[in-house]
């Protein structure tokens, strides 16, 4: 590693509504910055090829796999993690829908799945089943077989989450 590789870079971003400044190595992935520097461990790591979706967060309102983004690339953006979806211990409507319709089991894909759902419903407030399944194809769940998740997204849409 050269000195240039490990020199710290200053990154300022808004995370769940709060401005945060980090001094980090340029190779630091956003997911590592969130988890290790900011202790926002709700964002999960499930693979190393950007294919499972467990690390999904919103950057300026759009969903991204935070393992595919360098923290320095997120400089100046506004990031929403699962910790920013509800309010304290109160669940947001999208989370409540997942709770009532068994949209989760082990919970490891859940934060990413919830944020992918927020993006999906923001794009299309009334998706049919095919659109829901297509919209969540980037997020792997191994427990539910997806039926409970699809039911949850339908319920969230009915509750007006994307409107």
């Amino acid at each position: 590693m050269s000195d240039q590789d490990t020199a710290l870079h200053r990154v300022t971003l808004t995370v769940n509504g709060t401005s945060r400044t980090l001094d980090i190595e340029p190779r630091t992935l956003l997911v590592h910055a969130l988890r290790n520097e900011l202790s926002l461990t709700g964002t999960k790591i499930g693979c190393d090829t950007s294919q499972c979706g467990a690390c999904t967060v919103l950057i300026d309102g759009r969903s991204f796999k935070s393992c595919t983004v360098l923290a320095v690339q997120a400089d100046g953006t506004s990031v929403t993690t699962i910790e920013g979806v509800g309010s304290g211990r109160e669940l947001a409507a999208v989370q409540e829908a997942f709770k009532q319709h068994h949209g989760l089991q082990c919970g490891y894909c859940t934060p990413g799945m919830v944020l992918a759902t927020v993006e999906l419903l923001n794009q299309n407030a009334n998706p049919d089943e095919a659109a829901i399944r297509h919209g969540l194809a980037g997020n792997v769940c191994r427990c539910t077989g997806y039926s409970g998740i699809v039911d949850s997204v339908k319920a969230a849409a009915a509750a007006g989450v994307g409107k």
Partner: protein
Amino acid sequence: MSIVGTDRPRIDADDKLRGATRYLGDLKPHGLLHGRLVLAMDAHATINRVIKDAALAIPGVVAVLTAEDLPTAMEGPMRQFEPLARGEIVFQGQPVALVLAETEAAAEDGVEAVIVETTSHAAVLDLEAAIKPDSPLARIRQIGGEMEGSAAMHVEAAGEGEGAPAPAAAAAEPVSANAKGPHRQQHGDATAALAGSEAVVKGTFRTSWVHQTYMEPQGALAIPEVDGSVTIHSSTQGAFYVRGMVAKLYGVDVSTVRVVGAPLGGAFGGKFNLIDPLVMGAALAVGRPVKLQLTRSEDFASGMPASACILELELGGTKATGLTAFRSRILLDQGAYGDWAMDGAVPVMIGGPYRWSAWDSLSYGVTTNRFGTGAYRGPGGPQVVFALEQLVDELANKLGVDPLELRLKSAAVEGDTGVDGDPWAPVAGREVIERTMQHPLYKKRGSLPANEGIGVAAGVWMGARFPSAATCRVDQDGGITVVTGAVDMSGTNTSFAAIAADTFGVPIESVRISYADTATAPHAPPSGGSGVTYSVGQSIRLAVEDAKEQLLDFASDQMDVAASDLEVVDGMVRPVGSPDRGKSVAHFAEQVTGFVATAPPIEGRGRFAPGNPSPSVACHVAHVRIDPATGEVETLDYAVIQDVGKALNPGLVRGQLQGGAVQSIGWALYEELQHDEYGQLLTGSFMQYAVPRADRVPNVDVDYIEVPSAIGPFGAKGIAEAAVMAGTGAMANAVAAAVGSRIRELPMTSPRVWRAANSR
């Protein structure tokens, strides 16, 4: 008020939905060292030298450990007793060294700098060739010692013990030291019975290695304590199991190992003591906390997936009475380590949920240079079902009877002799098959467009019967706290809460399920084999009943009413028939917990050994469409019909059955850990290893029936393994119906389907 049987959210839903649940990867104690593994590049080699200098020179790297650096006290033929390669590399991806560093990044840099010098040997990969007497050996250095503990759990759950040793005369096939067995089950004269059958079918079937693919990769954290003991936090299904195994490996007393189960980010049978021996040894070696969590690629390369099999099967039947006899020979690839190999159980499992008059069923476990065998949901099931259920369909076709009619005629009932020689426990195969005959999806099969097919199959999981214990405390506020050492697997704690609430007579909000570690918990079995709710649930019911009796005895004195005339309803203790004379549970709880209390606190104890398992039978119905131009298979519709005994929480039961069904679609169409001829893994990430995604699977319709178990709590049976069993058969039968010819190799990928569709 009945909570059992009502659909309620999981009790851990809020934490998980808020991202607040602390999984293993979220723990970070002071002084933590991060571990990363150096994985073998060769599939089979002798280690000449491991050069550590360059790695140790990297700032932040603290140690590079090889097998000699781990303070192990014994050797054994299991992966769990060989956490790092000892002199010989036996599969590509095997851990050779463990780099410890102050940061994850430094540890990763250290791994890149370690040089492993080896002399390569031939990789043993072909099952038929491997068992021939002149085959090279997958393991040059044979390690003595017995397999223990682990495989026995699922072997027992699947059937009965190891297959009986074959009579010397029967073991005619000369085999190499790569072969373990034969395990053989025999009854009657199978040859004569097949000859006397109206129709006989046979085939050879191949299945792939399949990874459990829990979304949270394997991990554990070991913390050396000031008194010389070690605390292990682990993403494990079996805390007591891990404690026993690592204590044995390192020659320490179990009392010096404390295992705390972390919330599981999925497991499916795969999370049993893979990482724990590594972090335990490293923590003992360096005296600092050590955490190791695999990356996804490492988990594919170095995990403990499910075995591939080659199954030869021949079976016969008659129109009037159904299935008659079968003969089978199964080669089960146990890889380099057979920790959880099911070679002893598959000769029993291949009999399915059926009654037979004669059989000759044998298997070999084959050592090769691929991984080691782990347990994966219904271990052995998807493999045997793929062979058995296709042939049952072919036989029905040959006999000219409806495929479910043939299965119904042949379904085993209580008391029939099982393939293991023991009588069947009560089993509801007939009820499940009859219900399946009525399912709209099955009825649709006669009226389909071209290139579509509907297939059906049946499967059974015999169930587990692990003993367990639990306690129940009445708290000052009138709530109850249940203490269990069983880690929550797929929502078991939510079912426990329902059991406790209904048994005591308090609202579910007043029930706390407290997971305790191996230092403090009543003994608990591993969460696996579909045995948790079945056994621990009953221990909890007994503990709660005991606590309730103690409370009523105390209340009886206080209220001057015979205990037998008191009941607890909605948190109130009241004389039967006089609801307005009730006093709250809290009222009495205060009197046995306060400083000036004179009566002892209430603490119930439950202990339970089920004695017998309660088998769960499931039928799957699959509807597929194939594209004859590409061979692509689309799963259009899917239904699961299963006997669950009693659905303690219908929502959770549905979720288990849907999840199992989709995993079996993965087995059927997509999943395969492939190696090249040198034993190099070709499908080591989600780029190449395909799991079902939301847009590739349909909704799964669940139609469960409840034939109560006399043993499980409230009649419940273990359900999670049975939920995956029938899928490979149903999908294969659906594809065969759509294509017009049979595919005898898993997964049924586009090239295989295309070849079948275009070779007619």
